């Protein structure tokens, strides 16, 4: 470490001498930021493969905490395995319910111009800006007091996940809907298609990339959610991965927890990479400029 310091300092001085020539300071700042933002995660993933109990001393590579340890690995510790199953179950189900519901809502809200359309649009935007804890408390109280035929646990969690991800699906689909415009549909109807036919055979195929992205993004959102899942937990079997991470991070930390977190990471990164690749394929086909990554970067606004 200490041998490195003078050389780094000397280079820094040279950079400082002419910072405006090329944005070297900005570049340095950005890469330091990126290292700060990514390296801790890499280290956490690294220790999920540690061949020992420590989360700060590297003892060699192993799959001990994933499946080899007969008691403490993710595969064999029931509390960790159940969390994994519950997270996947919730994410899969909410993906399948939210996406069609959101696509229909996006179509409806984009085209329907009657009384009630404005308030409905406004209502749709609200979940986007509501702090999660507020939604968590609200759902908890409604399921324990008013809609008490919905038991806490998986059913309540599922309803909650669909509710908070619905608006984002609408935003994604609507963006594509505006980009596509109405010309294709109108052309189809001029050629004699009924409204329903033009919707099913012209518009839906045009929306396909957005629908696929929405599926993946709902999956990633749901599997990542902590607050709503935590407020609506009922017993051991409805604990999701993030809830498990929360309750064990300080109490009973072991590399198995890192392994569980890493699996979550691989899951959501896969979903989002698929969404990105899909977007890219469609953009290429349509000859769009720019990159899919830039599209994805703008998605969250």
């Amino acid at each position, binding site marked *: 470490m200490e041998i490195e310091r003078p050389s780094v300092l000397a280079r820094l001085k040279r950079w400082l001498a002419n910072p*405006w020539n090329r944005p070297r300071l*900005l570049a340095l*700042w*950005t890469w330091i930021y990126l290292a700060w*933002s990514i390296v*801790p*995660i890499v*280290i*956490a993933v690294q*220790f999920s493969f540690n061949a020992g109990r420590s*989360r*700060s001393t590297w003892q060699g590579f192993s799959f001990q905490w994933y499946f080899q340890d007969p008691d403490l690995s993710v595969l064999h510790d029931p509390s960790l395995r159940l969390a994994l199953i519950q997270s996947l179950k919730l994410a899969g189900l909410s993906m399948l319910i939210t996406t069609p519901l959101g696509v229909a*809502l996006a*179509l409806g809200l984009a085209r329907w*111009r009657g009384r009630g*359309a404005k308030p409905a649009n406004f*209502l*749709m935007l*609200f*979940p*986007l*800006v509501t*702090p999660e*804890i*507020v*939604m968590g*408390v*609200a759902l908890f*109280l*409604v399921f324990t*007091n008013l809609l008490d035929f919905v038991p806490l646990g998986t059913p309540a969690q599922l309803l*909650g996940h669909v*509710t908070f991800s*619905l608006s984002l699906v609408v935003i994604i689909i609507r963006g594509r809907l505006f980009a596509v415009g*109405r010309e294709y549909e*109108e052309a189809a109807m001029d050629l004699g298609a009924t*409204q*329903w036919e033009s919707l099913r055979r012209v518009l839906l195929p045009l929306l396909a990339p957005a629908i696929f992205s929405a599926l993946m993004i709902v999956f*990633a959102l749901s599997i990542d959610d*902590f607050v709503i899942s*935590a*407020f609506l937990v009922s017993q051991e079997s409805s604990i999701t991965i*993030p809830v498990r*991470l*929360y309750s064990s*991070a*300080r109490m009973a930390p072991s590399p198995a927890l*890192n392994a569980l977190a*890493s699996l*979550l*990471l691989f899951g*959501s*990164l896969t979903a*989002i990479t698929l969404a990105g690749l899909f977007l890219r394929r469609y953009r290429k086909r349509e000859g769009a400029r720019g990159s899919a*990554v*830039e599209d994805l*970067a*703008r998605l*969250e*606004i």
Partner: protein
Amino acid sequence: MAEQTGVVGERTWLWRAFAAPGVTWLILLFLTPFYAILSVAMGKLDPIFLTAEPVWNPAAWDPGVFAEAFGEIFGGALGETALRTIAYVIVATSLSVLIGYPVAYYVSRRAGRWKILILVLLIAPFWINYLMRMLSWVNLLDREGYVNQILMALQIFDEPREWLVGRHETVILGLVYGYIPFFILPLFAALDRIDEAVVEASRDLGASPFWTFLRVTLPLSKQGILAGTVIIMLPMFGDYYTPNLLSGSPKTRMFANEIDLFVNQTTSGGGRGAALTLILMGFVGLLMVYYLLSVARATREARA
């Protein structure tokens, strides 16, 4: 009104039918829950079990619990927590702006061939679970963790420091680390939209890079800064897990911790928890409205 007579817009009932399930869902599972918060906060206490009993009829609402919670914030036991929360959020947001602006600026305007790679790295934390990101810091800041190891190797400290108990700086680090990606991306989008020609015009007219930045780029990115700030402040005000994971001490408790305590960890606190939630919502209401309006404006622009 003319656009409504177009071929596609004719069958309003069809579009209304498409919107109906989603709207019903939101009324049942988004609006009704808010009514439930109100009914519990303004409800009464069961005299025997001391559990909160909701009152569904607004005419019979009793603001007693609500007023009590309000009193505790202004000059009561909760005052300190509320002030601490505001201080944490302001410090963490300011740090995010200071750290994040140069990054967003570099990526959008100067990164060149690195742009895509940097963007991928900037987007990644979005999709890495927040708690996993906090867990990685719990690992690093542990007594035996890398941070203490490095600081001791550099002989800055003689003995390991307890980072994870009741330290303001740790909680603020966690908040900045957790939310800064959500600030950088909207700002990036705003900076990316600025027309290069405007910047070049300023340079051509003789402004130095510094003044061009101050007079042209910075004002044009104001919307992005505001949007990013609001986006991270909203969840920070509702955050209870960051202080719990990185400190877990009453000394670093935030406002939302009180809500969590009363709703999740006691049986008799439902009413109080609901009242505190309403107060929190009222407090962040302005931020919410600002964000709503900016989303609505973005939608209108996309439509036009």
